[in-house]
């Protein structure tokens, strides 16, 4: 099967600091892939470069056969690739519904938007009760759900998730990952960035390990989980 997302030899630098070097990665349609690594490994940087928030130094990003490299973020978003940023990035002074509708900003199909909104509420009942509330007043877990729901409203073909478990209690992490799996079951491909390697490898079929901006290992999650180096560095054994 040809890849939905295909990154080749991507390098990103901040001024003189090389954050990501020669990174190559693929995600097939509907596939769940994780990118794991320690703090500062370059995970967020990679997602930002894919989604057009920062311009890469070198390398290319192709989505569905089209080059995304150097497109601004709003153009990338319009092509069906949605990033849920680190820290959720809900609009704090907008209500829950308004946040969800921002997800559908580029869409014009009113009828299907309304149907998708109902679907999001069905999947995220906590949001239904709070639809008129300001997003800034939601709990961290609720904000993460809102960010996921908002991403769904864009009807993406690829979802980029940056540490959705960050700062959440274990039960809430479970709930959030259940939702992610349900979204993926609807034929949405997922590229998941996580520090919680155990959870990421359990959720995704394949994974990449990033160390100091370089991919050092990649393969099926089962193989990575069995790899002694991964077990020692990321699974706490």
């Amino acid at each position: 099967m040809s890849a939905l997302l295909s990154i080749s030899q991507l390098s990103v630098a901040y001024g003189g600091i090389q954050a990501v070097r020669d990174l190559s990665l693929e995600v097939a349609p509907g596939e769940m892939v994780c990118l794991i690594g320690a703090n500062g490994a370059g995970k967020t940087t990679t997602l930002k470069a894919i989604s057009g928030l920062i311009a890469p130094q070198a390398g290319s990003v192709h989505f569905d056969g089209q080059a995304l490299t150097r497109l601004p973020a709003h153009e990338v978003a319009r092509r069906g690739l949605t990033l849920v940023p680190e820290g959720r990035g809900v609009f704090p002074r907008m209500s829950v519904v308004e946040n969800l509708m921002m997800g559908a900003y580029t869409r014009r199909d009113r009828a299907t938007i309304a149907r998708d909104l109902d679907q999001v509420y069905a999947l995220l009942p906590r949001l239904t009760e709070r639809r008129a509330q300001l997003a800034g007043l939601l709990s961290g877990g609720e904000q993460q759900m809102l960010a996921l729901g908002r991403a769904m409203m864009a009807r993406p073909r690829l979802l980029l998730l940056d540490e959705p478990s960050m700062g959440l209690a274990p039960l809430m992490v479970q709930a959030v990952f259940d939702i992610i799996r349900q979204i993926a079951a609807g034929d949405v491909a997922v590229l998941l960035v996580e520090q919680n390697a155990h959870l990421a490898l359990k959720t995704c079929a394949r994974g990449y390990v990033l160390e100091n901006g370089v991919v050092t290992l990649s393969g099926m999650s089962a193989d990575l989980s069995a790899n002694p180096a991964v077990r020692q560095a990321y699974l706490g054994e």
Partner: protein
Amino acid sequence: MDIFLQQLINGLVLGSVYALVALGYTMVYGILELINFAHGEITMMGAMVSLAVIGALALAAPGLPGVLVLGAGLAVAIPVCMALGLLIERVAYRPLRHAPRLAPLITAIGVSIILQNIAMLIWGKQYIPFPAILPQGRHEILGASISDTQIAILVLAVLIMMTLILVVQKTRLGRAMRATAQSRQVASLMGVDVNRVIASTFVIGSALAAVAGVMVSAYYGLAHYYMGFLLGLKAFSAAVLGGIGNLGGAMLGGLLLGLIESFGAGYIGDLTGGFLGSHYQDVFAFFVLIAVLVFRPSGLLGARVVERA
């Protein structure tokens, strides 16, 4: 004549003009955290351009109804100011988007000076009179008097402000503006072309400024290349009074400032036993600005919302 009611009417009329200008400051601040000090000069340009058109038309076709002539002046001044706002954003502010905050502030002051000088070169240093083309009717209510011009200013200002609220609350552009104000980066991830939204904010603010400029010159009967300075400073004070970045705040702050000025000018003579006269009117705005900055820096309606994120 009822002095109190008269001051109330004068204050509301003046205040609605301040509010229109204050909205431009507050919209730009809300989205960029930038104080566009050139905004007062855009108001001045609106007044000057419309007066140029009105003056030319009044000469060329003396028979035309005044309202039509005024409409023509507005119809030219509004797009000119919109283009000016667009140009200023593109040339003076966008290249400095990631520069330290002092840089665009200094640029803003530079742009003001440039606009003043352009206006001075085109129209000279003298006061330009507003031709007597408008109906001069006055109406008595409860012992106070209100002119046709005042009624027109009030009605138009209220209509414009209601339209603006609708646009910001209900339209796609309005939602994109609010999203951009809260997080430029996340808005762009939603597919919002942030540069376009920022440009639109300048354009809308400049259109309001153009109308306000025409109102001021019609109200006082004259325009001047330097008029934007004081007007801009007052409107900025009004925006700070209401809570800069907050649309409702700019409207409230504008109206309050108009009332403070009008009542202050009306009663200052009595209060100081004739020591200070009504020509101290212009000072009140700055007392208000200082008092707000000291006692409630976020303004009357600023920082209402507790933010968790």
